[in-house]
C-alpha cells in the first residue's frame, strides 16, 4: 500500500496513530476538545475487532483501560482538563503497577470549566505531578498534526517498553487544526510488542533489575495467576509495608525513566547552533515561536528554537547544548510559567530566562514572540 496524503485533524491523526500502533481498546467520556478521538474510536475499533466503551466518567474510563491493558490489549483514553484531573489517581495506579496505557490530554483553558473551547498549556505540571507520590511518567507534546500521528505511535511504544502511563499532551488548537498529512505505508509502521514472560512456573510479576529494570508482564487470563495491587509490593506481587521494599520500588520506577532519558527524549530544533536568544516552546505555541525565530534570523538576530517533543522527562541534554551560547532564553507558553520553571532550573545562572505567559485563551501571535526576542536582545 502506498503512502497516503490526507487532510487530517489533530485528533484524527492521534486516532490513526493509535490504530497504527495496535490500539484495541478505548474507554472514554465526552469532553471538549478531545471528543473527536472517542467518536473516531467508536467507529473504527469494531471494524478491526477492537472495543470501544463510553464509561460513566473519566475515572471509570482510565480504570477500564488499565483493566484492558492487563489482559494484553493496547488501550487508550482521551480527555481534557477537568477529566484529566479526575484521572490522576489512576494514573498513579498505572504508574505503580506498571501497566502500559496512553492518555491523550487536549489542553483547554482552566482551572475548572474555564473556557472549554479555547487552547491552553496549563497542564504541563499536572501531567508531570498530578498524581500523588514520586512516580514514573512520560509526556509527549506534538507540535503539528503529522506529529499527532507519530507521537501517538511513539506513546504506545514507550508505554510498552517502560511499562508506564504515557500522556500525549496536545491542546485545543493542535487537536482541532487540520493540516495536510502524509501517512506512511501501514506496513512500514512497526509498533513495539509487549515483552512477555516465558512460562508461569516461578513467575514473579515485579522481578526486575533494581537499577531501572522493567519487569515482564503476563496478560491476565493466560495461566499466570498473579496479583496486581496498588499497595507497595514485593517482586512476587505481595503487598508490603517494609521500608526497604518501598524504597527499592520507588527508586526503580524513577530509574526506569531517569536512566533512559536519551532513549526517551526527542526535540525539534531550528537555528540553535549559534543562537544568542533561545526560544523554548512546545505544541501550538511553538508554531508561532518558529515563525518569530525565522523573522528574527532574517533581521540578523541570532535566534533559535528548541521544541521539546518529550516534555517529561525534559530533554535536558539537548537544551544545554542549544543554550550553550544563549544569553537569553525566551519561554512563550499558554500559562503563567510552568515549562519556564524547568528551563530556569536547568539554565541556573548561565542565562536570563524570560517568561512570556499568555492566559486569555488565544494563541500567541508570532509578533508577540518576536517582540520578546527583540526585547530580550
Amino acid at each position, binding site marked *: 500500500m502506498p503512502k497516503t496524503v490526507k487532510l487530517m485533524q489533530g485528533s484524527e491523526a492521534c486516532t490513526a496513530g493509535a490504530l497504527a500502533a495496535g490500539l484495541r481498546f478505548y474507554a472514554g467520556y465526552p469532553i471538549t476538545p478531545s471528543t473527536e478521538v472517542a467518536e473516531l474510536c467508536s467507529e473504527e475499533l469494531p471494524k478491526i475487532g477492537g472495543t470501544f*466503551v463510553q464509561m460513566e466518567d473519566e475515572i471509570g474510563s482510565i480504570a477500564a483501560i488499565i483493566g484492558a491493558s492487563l489482559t494484553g490489549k493496547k488501550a487508550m483514553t482521551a480527555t481534557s482538563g477537568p477529566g484529566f484531573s479526575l484521572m490522576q489517581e489512576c494514573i498513579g495506579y498505572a504508574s505503580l503497577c506498571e501497566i502500559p496505557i496512553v492518555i491523550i490530554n487536549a489542553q483547554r483553558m482552566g482551572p475548572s470549566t474555564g473556557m472549554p473551547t479555547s487552547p491552553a498549556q496549563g497542564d504541563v505540571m499536572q501531567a508531570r505531578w498530578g498524581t500523588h507520590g514520586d512516580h514514573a511518567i512520560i509526556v509527549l507534546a506534538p507540535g503539528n498534526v503529522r506529529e499527532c500521528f507519530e507521537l501517538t505511535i511513539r506513546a504506545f511504544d514507550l508505554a510498552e517498553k517502560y511499562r508506564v502511563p504515557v500522556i500525549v499532551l496536545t491542546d485545543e488548537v493542535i487537536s482541532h487544526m487540520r493540516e495536510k498529512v502524509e501517512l506512511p505505508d501501514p506496513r512500514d509502521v512497526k509498533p513495539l510488542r509487549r515483552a512477555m514472560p516465558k512460562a508461569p512456573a516461578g513467575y514473579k510479576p515485579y522481578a526486575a533489575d533494581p537499577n531501572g529494570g522493567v519487569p515482564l508482564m503476563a496478560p491476565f487470563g493466560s495461566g499466570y495467576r498473579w496479583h496486581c495491587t496498588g499497595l507497595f509490593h514485593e517482586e512476587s506481587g505481595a503487598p508490603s509495608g517494609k521500608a526497604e521494599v518501598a524504597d527499592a520500588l520507588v527508586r526503580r520506577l524513577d530509574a526506569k525513566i531517569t536512566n533512559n532519558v536519551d532513549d526517551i527524549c526527542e526535540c525539534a530544533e531550528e537555528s540553535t547552533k549559534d543562537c544568542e536568544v533561545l526560544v523554548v516552546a512546545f505544541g501550538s505555541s511553538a508554531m508561532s515561536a518558529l515563525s518569530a525565530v525565522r523573522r528574527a534570523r532574517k533581521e540578523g538576530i541570532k535566534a533559535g528554537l528548541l521544541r521539546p517533543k518529550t516534555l517529561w522527562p525534559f530533554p535536558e541534554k539537548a537544551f544545554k547544548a542549544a543554550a550553550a551560547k544563549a544569553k537569553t532564553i525566551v519561554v512563550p507558553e499558554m500559562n503563567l510559567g510552568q515549562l519556564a520553571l524547568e528551563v530556569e532550573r536547568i539554565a541556573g545562572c548561565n542565562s536570563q530566562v524570560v517568561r512570556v505567559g499568555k492566559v486569555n485563551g488565544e494563541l500567541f501571535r508570532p509578533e508577540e514572540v518576536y517582540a520578546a526576542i527583540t526585547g530580550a536582545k
Partner: protein
Amino acid sequence: MAEFLSYFRQDRLPHIWCPGCGHGTVTGALVRAIDRLGLDKNKVCIVSGIGCSSRAVGYLDFDTLHTAHGRALAFATGIKLARPDLKVIVMTGDGDCTAIGGNHFIHAARRNIGITTIVMNNEIYGMTSGQYSPMTPKGMFGTTAPYGTVERSFDLCELAKASGATFVGRATTYHVPLLIDLIEKALQNDGFSVVESVGQCPTYLGRKNKIGDAVPLLNWIKDKAVNVKAAAVMPKEQLEGKFLIGELHNQPAPEYSAEYGELIQRVQRTFENVKGGLWECASNSD
C-alpha cells in the same frame, strides 16, 4: 477443607482481618461456589477495590487485581470487555461499592455486563477504623457518627434491581449455605449479578454500638434477616427493621460484552470490503 486451600495463595496467609471478622466467611463461600462449578482457575479474574473486604483477592490463587477505592467495577469492566471469555468477579465492601463506587455500580448494572459482584457489607468503614457508611443503619454509631447517624441507608439489592442487574440475592455470614448457593447461581448468570452478604465487624460496628463481639453480632444480624419466602406471608409491620435474604431477583437478559461482540461481527461484515478512513492504519493487528 484441604481441597479449598488449593484456591488460596497459602504463602500469603494468615490474613490481616481481625478475630471474628465476617470477611473470611464470604471468601470461603466464594471458593466453595467456584469449586462446585468447577471453574478453570486460569479463566477466573477477581477484582477488588479498597477496604478490609478488598484485601480478600490477595489471598486467592487466580489473576487478581486490587485496585483503587470504589473503582473495582470500572477496572473489571475493562477486563470483561477485553476478554469476554473470562469469568470476572468483583469483591467489594459497603463503602467501596455504595459510596465512592456508587456510580460505577449503577452503570455496571445498567449495562448488564457479565461481572459477579460480591458486596461484603459490614455496615461500617473498617479499614479506616469505624466511620459510618451509606449502609450503616440509621441511628447507629460510628467514629464519625458519635451521636448516631441520621442518614438513611441504602437497600443495595433494590438499587441493583432498579439499575438493571439481572441476578440479585442477599445472605449473611450466618446463613452460609444460602450464601454459597447464591454465589453459585450468580456465577451462572451471564449478566450482571449482585450478591450482598451482610457480615459482622465486631471490632468497630460491634464495639462502637455495644453489641459485643462476633457471636452476639452474628445473632443480631441473624435476627434482622428474614427469608424472602417467609416474608411473602408476613404482615408488613413484622418486617419493620428487618431485611430480606434469599434470591431476590433473577431475570436474565442479554449480556453486554456478548452484545458488543455481536456488534463487532455486524460491523465487520458491513465493512469487509471497504477501504479508506482510518481503516488502513489499523492493519497492525495483534
